[in-house]
């Protein structure tokens, strides 16, 4: 009897200890995130103004803003999404629905390897294949570099999401006389659409924070963009340039730009979640 009571007490104690431990770990992780967010907000909010959001950079002492960088970042995200999302989704569909056996396995391995390539390598690669032949930096080259980072992320999440669609649903459509491509487009992809959109969102959020691949491709600019064929500003490169400068005013502006970048990513997240909320 006494032994039983002891074992019972031990079990309760262990359970309590483990619960406390996991709670502490969660608290640590969440508080780190909260500290980062509040610190950036606290540092950045001082330099934030409407003028700051729409103006282009000015020399030290004259204020200026990040309007061109916000626009540039949006343009770069648009270009990279235009290339990266359709390509990535197609690769994901191939991996999940068509590519079986060795070829599929090889493609999956390549995609996984691509995910692990440091982003600066991607930048240098695009520099070699696009910037050098064109003889100048451009928004296009920057978009392509970001797209290359997006493709493997989108491909793998799309594949995972499509695999979650029950096989019985595919059979149901096939049994009605639907050819495979119609099953994929009309039934499987719509069923997995919220998941695919989440993957796309993750990829967009990921590349919107990339700096290294843009240094070699989009380069940066102090003016508003007029064409996709010229260097273009981006929030991340602007933050980098201002942060390594020796001026306190630019440091403050870098903090404000960071706050804007974070809000932008949050905004994209909310919009995509709203658009893809479960209808059925």
């Amino acid at each position, binding site marked *: 009897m006494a032994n039983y009571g002891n074992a019972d007490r031990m079990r309760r104690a262990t359970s309590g200890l483990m619960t406390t431990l996991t709670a502490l770990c969660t608290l640590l992780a969440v508080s780190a995130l909260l500290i980062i967010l509040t610190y950036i907000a606290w540092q950045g909010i001082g330099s934030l103004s409407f003028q700051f959001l729409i103006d282009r950079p000015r020399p030290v002492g004259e204020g200026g803003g990040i309007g061109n960088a916000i626009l540039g970042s949006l343009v770069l995200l648009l270009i990279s999404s235009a290339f990266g999302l359709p390509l990535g989704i197609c690769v994901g569909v191939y991996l999940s629905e068509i590519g079986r056996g060795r070829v599929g396995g090889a493609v999956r391995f390549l995609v996984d390897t691509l995910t692990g390539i440091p982003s600066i390598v991607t930048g240098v690669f695009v520099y070699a294949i696009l910037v050098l032949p064109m003889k100048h930096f451009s928004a296009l080259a920057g978009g392509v570099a970001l797209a290359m980072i997006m493709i493997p992320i989108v491909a793998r999440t799309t594949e995972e999401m499509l695999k979650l669609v029950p096989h019985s649903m595919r059979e149901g*459509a096939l*049994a*009605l006389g*639907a050819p495979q491509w119609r099953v994929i487009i009309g039934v499987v992809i*719509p069923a997995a659409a919220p998941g695919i959109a989440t993957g796309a969102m993750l990829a967009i959020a990921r590349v919107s924070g990339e700096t290294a691949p843009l240094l070699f491709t989009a380069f940066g600019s102090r003016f508003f963009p007029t064409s996709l064929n010229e260097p273009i500003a981006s929030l991340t490169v602007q933050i980098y340039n201002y942060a390594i400068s020796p001026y306190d005013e630019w440091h403050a502006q870098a903090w404000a730009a960071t706050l804007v970048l974070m809000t932008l990513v949050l905004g994209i997240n909310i919009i995509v979640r709203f658009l893809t909320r479960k209808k*059925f």
Partner: protein
Amino acid sequence: MPVQTVAPRIEVRAATPPPINTGKTKVAVRDLNFFYGRVQALHNISLEIPERIVMAFIGPSGCGKSTFLRTLNRMNDVIPGTRVGGQVLMDDRDIYAPGTDVVELRRRVGMVFQKSNPFPKSIFDNVAYGLRINRVTSNSSELSGRVEQALKDAALWNEVKDRLKTSALSLSGGQQQRLCIARALAIRPEVLLMDEPASALDPIATSKIEELIFDLKKQYTIVIVTHNMQQAARVSDTTAFFLLGKLIEVNATEKMFTAPNEKLTEDYITGRFG
């Protein structure tokens, strides 16, 4: 066609035992062998399914009855590593002959699965799916008409007519299964394959599906796989008994459940194994 009343249907059919092979043969299977990789799942099956009757396949789990059902609309094609030998003649044409249009075949041979599998679309779009992909009609009022008719045929219309635009996934399990039947009926197949259509349903939903099967055989040839021998006895005209990938016996359902020809059939039906 004689008018059939619903209530005393067992007696009606008992008085006139269903004739086998007197009508036109819809599906004729000759020496069918089927393999999953190296494992042979079906051995030399030969069977004739007459037009406009209900044929039930019974047998213990893993005996090959579902596999056999799926050879009739070539659904096994989508499983990698499968192989078929022998012939399946539908209206005297071999569906495994080279050059057979599988899409057209599946339009003629509808299928209802064990687990209801509505698409994550509205009720209307689920039923309209087959009509749209097969380009049956582009006229929207005709489309609505066919959807309504299919839902009526599946005895679901009265329950869903006011909410055709809501998600099919909001329906109950029994309603979802009847929706899948409506979806299969919408394209007016000639043969309807049912793979344990009521196994996941409660008794009330099951009896609705059974009544439905009884009504549908006026227009369709129906093949139903079931684990439930009472169900086979209630709904079918002929019954085929499978064991270990072999077809043991085909007989009129009345005869099958009272005086089967084979000892194995009798053992299975009386619960001596399986």
